[in-house]
């Protein structure tokens, strides 16, 4: 029964991939090697699509893989399989936290919060490296490292957000604007 197998395999990915969507990628390559559901090159295409559509990358990849294997039921089953371990684990943690919230736990969170912000900032740096820099040609030509068009857009968005701070525009407004600019000025070429 392929759906059951699909659930089981993605449940395992959800259980062992710690640290978000990108952490699932090595597990998916492993899956491509072990089970003949899709090839490694198909998987590369799936990752490209998952990165260029709305929605968390990990979920997009599970949906795409599931669909490739068994159509719409496959897409649903793979995604449900992926999220089931998190949902169970987080509900247990949330219940424990609600029950045992005391000064010791608060002290632990006092240390955790700045670290959490530091880790998110580091994730932001990773996004910046991919979006604003071009490291594919090595580091010999210093100026070629910078992707000028996105950098100028980023600076513009930053300035616009400061100027329009009072209006509290929805992030989607900036995202839509940037997509249009990207298309008009051919950012990818």
């Amino acid at each position, binding site marked *: 029964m392929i759906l059951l197998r699909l659930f089981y395999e993605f449940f395992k990915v959800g259980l062992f991939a710690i640290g978000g969507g990108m952490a699932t990628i090595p597990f998916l390559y492993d899956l491509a090697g072990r089970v003949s559901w899709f090839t490694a090159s198909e998987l590369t295409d799936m990752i490209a699509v998952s990165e260029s559509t709305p929605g968390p990358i990990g979920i997009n990849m599970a949906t795409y893989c599931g669909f490739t294997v068994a159509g719409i039921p496959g897409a649903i089953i793979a995604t449900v399989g992926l999220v089931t371990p998190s949902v169970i684990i987080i509900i247990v943690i949330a219940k424990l936290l609600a029950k045992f919230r005391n000064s010791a736990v608060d002290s632990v969170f006092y240390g955790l919060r700045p670290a959490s912000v530091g*880790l998110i900032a*580091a994730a932001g740096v990773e996004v910046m490296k991919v979006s604003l820099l071009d490291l594919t040609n090595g580091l010999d030509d210093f100026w070629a490292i910078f992707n000028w068009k996105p950098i100028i857009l980023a600076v513009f968005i930053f300035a616009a957000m400061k100027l329009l701070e009072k209006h509290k525009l929805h992030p989607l407004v900036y995202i839509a604007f940037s997509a249009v600019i990207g298309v008009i000025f051919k950012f990818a070429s």
Partner: protein
Amino acid sequence: MKELWELFYTFAIIGVSTFGGGAAMLPILQREIVEKRGWATQDELTDYYAIGQCTPGIIAVNTATFIGHKRKGVAGGIVSTFGMVFPSLVIITVIAAFLRGFADSETVKNAFAGIRACVCILILNAVVKLWKSAVVDKPGIVIFTLAFIISVFTDISVIFVVLAAGLAGYVIKRMKGGAKK
């Protein structure tokens, strides 16, 4: 029932507004959950991310489950997660079924190169907001800096960073408490 429906569509909006991974979702979460609906504080969001980064699974799902559970118990956690994944299910299925060349299209590539530049700034802005509520004193600045440097420049596991920071927080608070007596 009404509240469950609200959780579902709020997280569906968040899902469809997320371009990238867990960090890219943060600005949308701050907007929809903290500022607009008041379902969690900046600090709680920071806590959920801390836990989400060292527990299994996608951070988006971990955070959705946490907030849903806080609002409406187990059912809330499940409904929020389902809301979060719903747009992906629809969009990816349509692309996989009809638009195989989607990611190769010039227009899509250009649009996403633009979106990624924007997401950098949205994340930066979101991190500044979290910083203001979470990094409140000198030990906080030290922990932030160490976590940032370790994560950017080394391969040390995030789990280790989170555990060490939790332990440091506990020890620092204990020492401060001891000094008061």
